[in-house]
């Protein structure tokens, strides 16, 4: 696993359309920590994750990992950041195994395929086309796919959506493992993940909602 010691942001501001989503946002997470993003709907949790992943350009501010400035550094992001968004990025016409295999091979991690499928408890679905899966099973497949990623920083956007209790416990097990081996997780969720409080930092995005956008909402 490639090692990132920490990840932090410095006065990050993002504008979507004409609306400032958040302003002057600062966070710092180091190895073995989970940063839990909370905040009301529309407060910019997904936007922040996408910004860290480099899918959205920040209006101002920067994201650093140790000495590296990672805003716009595609190669660094591809090596170190694993992003799981709302969308599962699975092809309906392929089986669970084929879907996971494709991405694992793309990331150069074919030996992680089997362990992550077992980790999420979907071995019995391996040869089932994704179109026949329930939404929870699809989400499990997407999580299993993300587990194959070599990066040490996980960005998870509502990973628990659709998961049942068992799926949730598998997920939190994988997350604990990842933190134990020195990984970093930034996760937008409102669910209690059952992870030791000492490893969790909480970032409430409501604190950074820009005053001008509040003004516009009242308008």
């Amino acid at each position, binding site marked *: 696993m490639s090692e990132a010691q920490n990840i932090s942001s410095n006065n990050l501001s993002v504008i979507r359309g004409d609306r400032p989503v958040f302003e002057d946002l600062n966070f710092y997470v180091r190895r073995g920590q989970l940063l839990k993003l909370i905040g009301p709907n529309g407060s910019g949790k997904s936007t922040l994750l996408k910004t860290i992943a480099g899918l959205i350009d920040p209006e101002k501010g920067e994201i650093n990992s140790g000495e590296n400035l990672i805003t716009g550094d595609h190669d660094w992001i591809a090596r170190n950041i694993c992003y799981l968004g709302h*969308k599962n990025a699975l*092809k309906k016409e392929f089986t669970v195994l084929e879907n996971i295999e*494709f*991405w694992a*091979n793309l*990331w150069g991690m074919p030996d992680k395929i089997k362990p992550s499928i077992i980790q999420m408890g979907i071995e019995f679905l391996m040869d089932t086309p994704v179109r026949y899966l329930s939404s929870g099973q699809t989400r499990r497949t997407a999580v299993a796919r993300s587990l194959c990623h070599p990066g040490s920083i996980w960005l998870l956007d509502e990973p628990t959506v659709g998961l049942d209790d068992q799926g949730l416990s598998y997920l939190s097990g994988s997350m604990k493992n990842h933190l134990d081996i020195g990984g970093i997780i930034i996760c937008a969720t409102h669910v209690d993940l059952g992870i030791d409080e000492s490893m969790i930092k909480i970032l409430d995005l409501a604190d950074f909602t820009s005053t001008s956008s509040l003004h516009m909402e009242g308008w």
Partner: protein
Amino acid sequence: MKNIFFAIFKRDVHIGWSQGSTSSMVVAFFIIVVTLFPLGIGPEQNMLARIAVGVIWVAALLACLLSLDRIFQADFEDGSLDQYALSPLPLELIVLAKALAHWVTTSVPLIIITPLLGILMNMDDDAFMPLIYTMLIGTPALSLIGTIGSSLTVSLRRGGVLLSLLILPLYVPVLIFGVMSVDTLILDMGGNAPFLFLGAFTLFSLAITPWASAAAIRLALD
């Protein structure tokens, strides 16, 4: 790097064939459009022979256009495009892999069926091979230019019509030089300048379109 490129190419070809619809529907559309012409303008053989090459080229353009929106649309909707953007392979090469897959799943079947349609249109015997050559050289440009339209309209709900408006004007050089080069190759006069222009246009689009499409995709993901 090369493995990833071919993995994406194979995946797209697989999707194109496995749905059963993409390739076969495009070929069916191509055949129907060409058969409409003898029905519309009457079975006068000389007339048909004269317009055969142009009709087949225009029909190929339209058939290709029909399948363009699928290049990025499905990947955008299911989130694969986000993952591609974060993958170790540059987005430009991913565009190229997808354009290649599009060419293999749509244009190659069209070229294979072309001789049959040539017979239907009473095309000159001399014209068959030149037409196939020019299509082989010219159709990659259709897929490559198509990626620009497809990536620009990827985030629009009903981008199909806009896509046609954007892309058809850009297809005009392919049509002009495609038809002209068949004529010059048959008559064996005037050299092969149109043929070279056609090849140059394909190479030009190969050099430009991956960058343009990748930029458009980054905008769409924003």
